[in-house]
């Protein structure tokens, strides 16, 4: 049986924890709103980009002169997995779900005899993947200094990925991130970005292309990669905040329950101590 003092300290400490988790939840809620706004604001660009590229890809795609970013290298031997996770923990299963998906994919590819390379974005994913795939890690992008996610961040990652592709270091590039569904639900998603895949766009109106279709496509594809990475980063950012918000909400509730439980025990043992003292006094008086 813990002493009264111990119980009191325990209650005080859980109360502090609850204050912290409550504050973190509120901070995440504010950040989530901002992240959602950013994702919302980026949507028109990505949508238009995909529509135009889908149309172009449909008309150029089948020809032999199609750019390699669209047609691929003709091989799927070397697979680059870009795993996007958060820099900080305390966000529930957010990082584990992405890592689990990436790990399953990596095992599957290795079993199929492919070469797997892993590029991590965000510290948490690197820590978890390093245990199993230390030999496959080819790079890491540190986002801990990034206060506000900008297109420039996505561009930097895209440039890195494209440089690897151009240098023949990889044939297929897939990104892993959490798609934001709602505060309580984020969907881990794997998306192939090189060779580019588009939903079969409806045949677009007859456009004049300036310079040529091929030249425009060649110019757009790298931008498309950056755009897809940017969208993924934004979705991931919103998902992270959503996951943290619900994780912290749970933690706050648990702390509340714990406080109630300990307070009951505290009151009970205090009452027991008082009763015991009274009995001692009364029986002492009777003995006289």
């Amino acid at each position, binding site marked *: 049986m813990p002493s009264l003092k111990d119980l009191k300290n325990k209650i005080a400490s859980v109360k502090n924890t609850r204050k912290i988790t409550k504050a973190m939840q509120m901070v995440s809620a504010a950040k989530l709103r901002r992240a959602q706004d*950013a994702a919302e*604001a*980026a949507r*028109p*660009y*990505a949508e*238009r*980009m995909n529509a*135009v590229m889908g149309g*172009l890809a449909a008309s150029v795609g089948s020809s032999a002169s199609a750019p390699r970013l669209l047609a691929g290298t003709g091989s799927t031997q070397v697979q680059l997995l870009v795993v996007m996770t958060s820099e900080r923990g305390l966000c529930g299963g957010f990082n584990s779900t992405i890592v689990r998906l990436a790990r399953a994919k990596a095992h599957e590819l290795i079993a199929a005899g492919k070469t797997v390379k892993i590029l991590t974005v965000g510290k948490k994913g690197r820590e978890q993947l390093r245990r199993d795939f230390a030999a496959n890690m080819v790079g890491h992008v540190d986002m801990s200094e990034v206060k506000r996610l*900008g*297109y*420039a961040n*996505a561009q930097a990652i895209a*440039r890195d990925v494209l*440089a690897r592709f*151009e240098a023949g270091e990889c044939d297929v590039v897939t990104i892993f991130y959490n798609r934001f569904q709602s505060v309580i639900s984020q969907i881990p998603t794997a998306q192939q970005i090189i060779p580019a895949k588009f939903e079969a766009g409806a045949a677009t*109106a*007859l*456009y*004049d*292309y*300036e*310079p040529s279709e091929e*030249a*425009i496509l060649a*110019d*757009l594809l790298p*931008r498309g990669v*950056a*755009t897809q990475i*940017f969208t993924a980063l934004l979705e991931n950012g919103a998902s992270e905040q959503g996951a943290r918000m619900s994780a912290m909400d749970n933690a706050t509730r648990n702390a509340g329950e714990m406080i109630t439980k300990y307070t009951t025990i505290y009151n009970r043992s205090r009452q027991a101590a008082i009763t015991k003292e009274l009995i001692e006094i009364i029986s002492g008086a009777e003995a006289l």
Partner: protein
Amino acid sequence: MAGTLQFDLVSPERRLASVAASEVQIPGADGDLTAMEGHAPTITTLRPGVLKVVSAEGAKSFVVTGGFAEISATGVSVLAERAVPVEELTPALMDQLIADASEATAVAVDKDAADKSMADLVAMRAAAGF
């Protein structure tokens, strides 16, 4: 006065403008062009330059660094990698754009194109009088 066309300028981060414009001057990769109502549907890539929109509210100019424009008979949507209203352009910002471009030039596969956009940027800085 001809009719208007819907003009949208979007960057990856946000929508910068959405107005009914009477004409839009676009710095296309193969030369500048002006889109007005009824323009033939065209898709063109952009070179670094100044994009000018004339609408009922007056003329507005934006500095764009690249991207593409989709022109149809009733609208123009410009997807710019970076776009800055001319009023907000400062020598420091210009220098930063040039620094970014030279970074991109260093790793670019197509040196000619990168050098060209670099030259466009430098020309633009000279034109802006910095």
